[in-house]
């Protein structure tokens, strides 16, 4: 197994005239990695840099040994933006078949992805009429097409009920067990415990990186929220 899937070096991103990320170094490996931090801290900006749709002002992002967003990666990285990024006026299957065609996959790939997210009974439903959780899973199914080596999901669990969230995290782990590295962002701190590796982000910087248990132990606290607060205090001193 390759132990570094994503390598970020000296990354600098300016948005709206303001540096959002200023000199970030980071290595992400296999398993389920959670990118956690408050709204506006730069999670989406970092994920967009990793999938190669963010204009960057400096530094390098390397994914699976290739420059982020380069040709060889286009069918090896699955991405779901912060919105579910599917066509609301198409049925679930029409959405999947379209993206499968763009990826050069056979129509059967659409069906496989549908089964993976447990939406087989909703294939003919129009995406816009599904519940939030179902739409999020359609977006996830599109990202899963063709079994990518890296899956990048921007806040896929936000606003969902706890049962759905638990199920989705279980799905992320099943996907990771089959060899796909999974990178998931969230601004909800209590999702931290569900990750193999945690990246805590604040104001464009990664303030902690490691297994949740290690981060808590290092700060001598019982939960990630307290660890986050302790780290912020530490940074102030």
């Amino acid at each position, binding site marked *: 197994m390759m132990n570094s899937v994503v390598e970020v070096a000296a990354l600098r991103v*300016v*948005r*709206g005239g303001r540096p959002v990320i200023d000199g970030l170094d980071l290595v992400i490996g296999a398993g389920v990695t959670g990118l956690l931090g408050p709204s506006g801290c730069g999670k989406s900006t970092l994920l*967009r840099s990793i*999938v*190669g*749709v*963010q*204009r*960057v002002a400096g530094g390098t992002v390397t994914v699976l040994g290739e420059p982020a*967003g380069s*040709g060889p990666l*286009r*069918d090896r*990285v699955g*991405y*779901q*933006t*912060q*919105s*579910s*990024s*599917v*066509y*609301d*006026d*198409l049925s679930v299957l*029409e959405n999947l078949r*379209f*993206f499968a*065609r*763009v*990826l*050069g996959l056979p129509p059967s790939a659409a069906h496989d992805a549908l089964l993976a997210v447990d939406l087989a009974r909703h294939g003919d439903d*129009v995406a816009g009429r599904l519940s939030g959780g179902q739409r999020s899973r359609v977006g996830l199914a*599109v990202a899963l097409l063709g079994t990518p080596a890296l899956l990048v999901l921007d806040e896929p669990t936000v606003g969902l009920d706890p049962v759905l969230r638990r199920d989705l995290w279980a799905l992320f782990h099943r996907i990771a067990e089959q060899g796909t590295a999974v990178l998931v962002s969230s601004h909800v701190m209590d999702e931290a415990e569900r990750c193999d590796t945690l990246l805590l982000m604040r104001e464009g910087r990664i303030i902690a990186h490691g297994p949740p248990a290690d981060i808590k132990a290092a700060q001598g606290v019982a939960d990630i929220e307290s660890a986050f607060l302790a780290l912020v205090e530490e940074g102030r001193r």
Partner: protein
Amino acid sequence: MTPRVTLAIAVRVLTQLRRDHRTLAMLLVLPCLLQALLWWIFQDTPLVFDRIGPALLAIFPFFVMFLVTSITTLRERSGGTLERLFTMPMGRLDFLVGYALAFGAVAAVQAALAAGVAVGLLDLDLRGPDALLVVVGVVDAVLGTALGLFVSAFARTEFQAVQFLPAVVVPQILLCGLIVPRERLPRVLESVADVLPLTWAVDAMEHLATTTRTGEVWRDVGIVVGFALAALALGAATLRRRTD
């Protein structure tokens, strides 16, 4: 550009349209109804209908395709689907040409319907070949699509996209020769009209109405195609894989 991807996008846009009955009606039925309304308005002055009827056959496809395309592509930008497509093996031209193909196909049906109604039911007096009327309608609609794709880059909301109608489309309608024949416009306005694409689409329709010769029509079609290609090139320039 990959033909597989271009075609996938064209087919997907058409599938979306098929599901959206209201937009489909606006694209196909509304131009015919408006044409009929005008015929009725000028019932007692048929010469006027014969003069402005051809111009309207050029204006409707341009107008509705511009509107529909600018809104649909804006939705792709704001809904995240464009961003997702850019992480996939899709080139900018696949996207632009896919849209142009889909709306070009709809335009062919629209032009055939509108021309059929105008010539067949409303007795619009036309000298040139009917088939050429459809050709002009299609390039005209593709022009509207290409311009719509281009301006959608400058709008962040659907409300802003609609604002391009009065800004970009209405001046062209006023100057294209519909209200005052182009050669009777003040000098400066005539020169302005000469560099606006819709003028040439209307010019093509007017030649079709008044002469059996097709040379000028093909020249106008060439000019409109040139404008459409330029708009597509501008659209490609504003469509970026990496954005701020």
